């Protein structure tokens, strides 16, 4: 809670405080617009998405948990997820069978270690441990909303190769972040 004014606003919003909701818009709409505009590319669509993001924020604020992450991180996750869903429904929606199989076959109840928010700053250092083209693929996915299909085409490799690359890079990143 300390030093996270966005988290404080979210807890007020969870209590139906509309003034806090307006204050949150003032404090975060430019950042969220930046996220939506970068991924969606079109201002009119980004503005429409921004309305949807704030609608979701009002409805879901009660689910924000300040002990699990920063307020702005939570807001950006909502904006990115919405933008990526919209981007995907614009393009093809072919499913990757292997990913589907992975989704169906899961082991329940495994706890994973939560990393303190401050540690995230080291991501820049950790990217340096990856080969440059693989680091670029991870960043392109996160910042520009590239799918596996987009990345495979961009880097001119088969889809499964891209998937293996990316999964290895993610494991390496995680190892570095948690070291």
């Amino acid at each position, binding site marked *: 809670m300390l030093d996270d004014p966005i988290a404080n606003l979210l807890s007020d919003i969870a209590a139906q405080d509309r003034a806090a909701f307006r204050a949150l818009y003032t404090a975060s709409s*430019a950042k969220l*617009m930046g996220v939506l505009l970068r991924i969606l590319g079109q201002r009119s669509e980004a503005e429409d998405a921004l309305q949807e993001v704030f609608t979701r924020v009002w409805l879901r604020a009660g*689910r924000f948990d300040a002990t699990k992450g920063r307020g702005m991180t939570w807001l950006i996750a909502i904006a990115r997820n919405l933008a990526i869903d919209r981007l995907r429904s614009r393009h093809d*929606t072919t499913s990757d069978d292997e990913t589907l199989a992975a989704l169906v076959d899961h082991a329940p109840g495994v706890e994973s270690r939560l*990393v303190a928010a401050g*540690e995230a700053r080291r*991501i820049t250092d950790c990217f340096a441990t990856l080969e440059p083209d693989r680091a670029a693929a991870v960043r392109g*996915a996160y910042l520009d909303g590239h799918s596996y299909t987009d990345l495979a085409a961009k880097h001119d490799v088969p889809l499964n190769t891209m998937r293996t690359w*990316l999964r290895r890079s993610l494991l390496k990143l*995680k190892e570095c972040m948690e070291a």
Partner: protein
Amino acid sequence: MTDPMISATSEEEDDLLAAEYVLGVLSLPDRAMAEARLRADAAFVTRVNAWEAHLEGLNDEFADAPAPDLMPAIEARLFPQAAPQNAAQHAAPSGGWFTRIFGLGLATLTAAAVTAFLLLSPPAPSFKATLTADASPLRYEATVVGDTITLALLGGAAAEPGYVHELWLIVGNDAPISLGLLTAPTVSLPAIAASAGAVLAISLEPAGGSTTGAPTGPVLVTGTLAAT
């Protein structure tokens, strides 16, 4: 280093799936399935939160972009009675009449749906389900009478322009069957294979509905049919 594609344990597999979801590389159906996991599996939520924290350092690279003041439109969406003028101004063209009905209040809408139901189908329903999702205002009531299923929107909003709510029936482990598109607040459709215990789901699809024969958009609400 071992090949994560071949030797990943299910624990690693879950963690990689969480990473792929947060990174945003999955296709829409795979994202919808990951989101279904998020609603049902607390350990998976923890994994997703951890990956959001791992990658949040990248958020600094999103440059600010000035946003116009969209608060009036947002408040009109969320609080239709508190801001009637805004609601009228900002309602989407095709949703205008619905917004006006909604503006009259949920009770009126419910009463209208119940009246329509009583007029249309005198015999007692054979199956019913309420379709909902956590933390979503969207709520549909499904009623099966004979070979007809009637869906009434009781809460939340119809799909935005360019999108439609599509109704699916899932029996056991079978693939979902499309029962049709919900293009109005109350819609009656042929009830193919409806039975007690069958699951109804509504997905968000592009206008015209899914073209693949399977849900392509996020699943918005679900419910299980029970005999009445």
